[in-house]
């Protein structure tokens, strides 16, 4: 028995980790028991509301997390400026919607009818396309200017460059568009705060149109990405480059072009997520990308960084944990960011490969 333990080769560090882990789990169980059985302060309708919020935010996190995962899978670097790429998408979408709202529809005869409400579907499609394309362009330029010259440098160097790019983009947006908070102008059919009422128990919960729309769109985009990665030639070359750059180059794959396209795809998804964020939440300013960016990174780590389905699952899970967590644990909603960061730290300590991730080789971690 004793010999078996010795063979396990437990160092002080791992022992401490496991003791800390057990304490954390016991504490969490105790809190959950306390809030669910004894207090019971939340009715089923409240839980339903938390669930809906979690799913919508989770979809947005997933889209951003995919961007981190795609880039990490290929370059083994954290694209720290990814949240800022999303922020610029939010701004671009805002300007398009403002333009649609400002132009009155021709031929409708009614001066108050703007183009936005005459052709809401077209307006939304264009908004999403422009927002996502702007982010894709920013992602492309970011890679070309800030990361490509550093290819093959020490691991810290591109990360510092990414931090610099993040600061630059955030402040550029502030200086260009001003520091004030802005509000999205949604078309009437997608007005914030409207939705279907779902009866839950003796009360009813609103399923907002914006939330449903965001959730469905994020699912569609993720399905599209999976098809792209699994079925197309580009996806095949992306997977090849992620596996081994040199071998891929020898097989005639233009590695630089594939990396550029990866940044374009991840920027496109982040931009779409940014517009969704604006349409669903309304208020935004130049800080809008920062916290979702870090959260989405957490989600990517949670699912296993470098793993696309992992990023999707991680994003959803993080969104749910964040909206349900404070209620389950019975703590203040102010502390929901703390939950996300704590999850990040716990995952990295106990399961650095994430939920779905393979155990990465030493040179990749």
């Amino acid at each position: 028995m004793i010999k078996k333990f010795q063979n396990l080769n437990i160092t002080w560090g791992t022992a401490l980790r496991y003791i800390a882990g057990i304490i954390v789990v016991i504490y969490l169980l105790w809190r959950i028991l306390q809030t669910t059985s004894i207090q019971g302060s939340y009715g089923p309708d409240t839980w339903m509301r938390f669930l809906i919020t979690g799913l919508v935010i989770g979809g947005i996190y997933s889209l951003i997390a995919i961007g981190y995962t795609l880039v990490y899978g290929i370059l083994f670097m954290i694209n720290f400026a990814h949240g800022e790429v999303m922020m610029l998408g939010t701004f671009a979408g805002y300007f398009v919607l403002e333009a649609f709202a400002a132009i009155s529809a021709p031929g409708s005869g009614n001066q108050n009818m703007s183009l936005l409400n005459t052709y809401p579907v077209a307006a939304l499609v264009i908004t999403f396309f422009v927002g996502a394309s702007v982010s894709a362009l920013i992602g492309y330029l970011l890679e070309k200017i800030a990361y490509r010259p550093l290819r093959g440098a020490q691991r810290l160097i591109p990360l510092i460059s990414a931090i610099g790019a993040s600061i630059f983009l955030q402040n550029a947006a502030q200086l260009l568009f001003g520091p004030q908070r802005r509000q999205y102008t949604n078309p009437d059919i997608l007005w914030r705060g409207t939705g279907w009422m779902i009866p839950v128990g003796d009360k009813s919960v609103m399923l907002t149109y914006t939330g449903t729309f965001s959730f469905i769109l994020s699912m569609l985009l993720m399905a599209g990405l999976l098809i792209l990665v699994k079925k197309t030639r580009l996806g095949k070359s992306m997977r090849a480059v992620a596996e081994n750059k040199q071998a891929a180059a020898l097989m005639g794959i233009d590695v630089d072009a594939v990396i550029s396209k990866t940044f374009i795809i991840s920027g496109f998804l982040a931009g779409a997520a940014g517009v969704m964020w604006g349409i669903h939440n309304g208020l935004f300013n130049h800080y809008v990308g920062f916290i979702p960016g870090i959260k989405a990174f957490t989600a990517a780590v949670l699912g296993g960084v470098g793993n696309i389905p992992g990023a999707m699952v991680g994003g959803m899970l993080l969104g749910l944990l964040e909206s349900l967590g404070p209620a389950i644990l019975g703590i203040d909603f102010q502390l929901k960011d703390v939950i996300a960061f704590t999850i990040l730290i716990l995952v990295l300590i106990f399961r650095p490969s994430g939920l779905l991730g393979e155990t990465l080789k030493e040179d990749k971690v």
Partner: protein
Amino acid sequence: MITSIKDGLRTGLTTAIIFTFLILIGFTSVAANIIGDVLGNPEALNDESQLPVENLLILIGLAGFITGLVTIRKGSSPPWIDVLLRGLTGGILAGLIVGIVIYIVGSFHMEGVDFRAYLPNLGTAQLGYLLFYSTPLAASTTYLLYFTVFSLVGALVRKTLTMLTGLSTQLKNLKSRVSNWSDTKVFKSFASNQLFQAGLIILVGVGLYFLPLVWGSYWNYIMGTVAIYILLGLGLNIIVGFSGQLVLGYVAFFATGAYTFALLTAPEPHAVGLNLWVAVGLSTLVSILTGLLLGLPILRLRGDYLAIVTLGFGEIVRILIRSDLLTPLTNGPKGVTNVGQPIWRGHIFTDINYMHLLMLLVLAGLFIAKRLKDSRTGRAWIAIREDQTVAQATGVDTYKYKILALLLGAAFAGLSGALFASRNQFTGPEDFTLMVSVNVLCIVIIGGMGSLPGIVLGAFVLKGLPELLRELADYRLLAFGALLVVMMIVRPEGLWPGQNNKKGKMAAFTNSLGEDNLEERA
């Protein structure tokens, strides 16, 4: 020929994008004002509302000139016809794009469109200035003309200079002479003379003692901030520069130091009223404990994971400080006021006393860091930084040394946090945002990772200069971000690299890691 045109067009496009961006962020007016100040032009024309146009013209000319200079590649000397082509195409394209932008914006402006709701820097005053208070067509033609002419001049000047003097080789000689001056015999015999050394130290010491007395409280405040950031930089340098662990949540230790000191000495919310010097010691200790708490579980992680985890930790500390949960302990978002002030010879510390104390601590910190670097511990850290696996293989207990580095760094942060709180007489959660961590990291990296003089230089450049250039305060963070990217591309070893990084060692090392070089080595 065709490559010349391509090069010219590319440079012109880049200039046009950068210049348009500068117009949109309102930098052009600020820069024009600075040019006016430098040249001593009158502040405003007879009419108060109009700024002198010639400053803006000089700025545009300068932009065109630089375009022309960079159209000629470094080290190349193309024939005259190519030089003309490069300068011309670059200038025309840049002028054309900027001119078109100005024309479009100007025409809309003339029709009464208000851009300010979306682009706050295109207000009436700024647009009028950008249009030279004339019509859009005239203004855009002026832009085109100035860009073209000065770009041509720039290209020709560059060509003439390289032709006439072989400037680039001379520059290189000068550079190597400057960088080698510390190796010359005269300097060495001087520097090793003990009398000279003692004299220098006394001179500097006296100078440092009298400076705060002379230069007034404004300068004491700025230099005090610089000194606090030097201390922070020294601490983070132990973690990032020596042992190579990228920690982005350094502010957490700064915050715990400041809050421990403030809560132990302020009358509200706890009224502990502890002796100040004990409180300083305790806040350092609490920061060290925080470092231990964070370091034990996570220091096994490498590089980018560590960066994100510590970033998360820094944010957790800030959110917790301002949360309702801890408000009874920390006073929440309001912060702690009336933080204790040290007493010296019967009177409360003045700004001069603080400055003296900070100077002493900076000198002590430099001394400690220097001794640590040269010790066995320091060599272990550098081994870990250069290659962790190799360090482990040669018998370095990497985990232990990494934790030691984190604890020492945390101690520096705790001490400077206590001083920061005491000097400001206030501490609140918004003093400890992520930007503090980023600032300190910039100091360490821009100064030169692992280099002590580099940190002093970095702190002066990043915290001192912006205070002097008040007009440019809005653009400070933008410049930081751009500087980080540019530094990583152009000079990753920093402005004043340490001995271990000198002479391209770092570059050779980083190249050896790159996958592309694998075949060459094999």
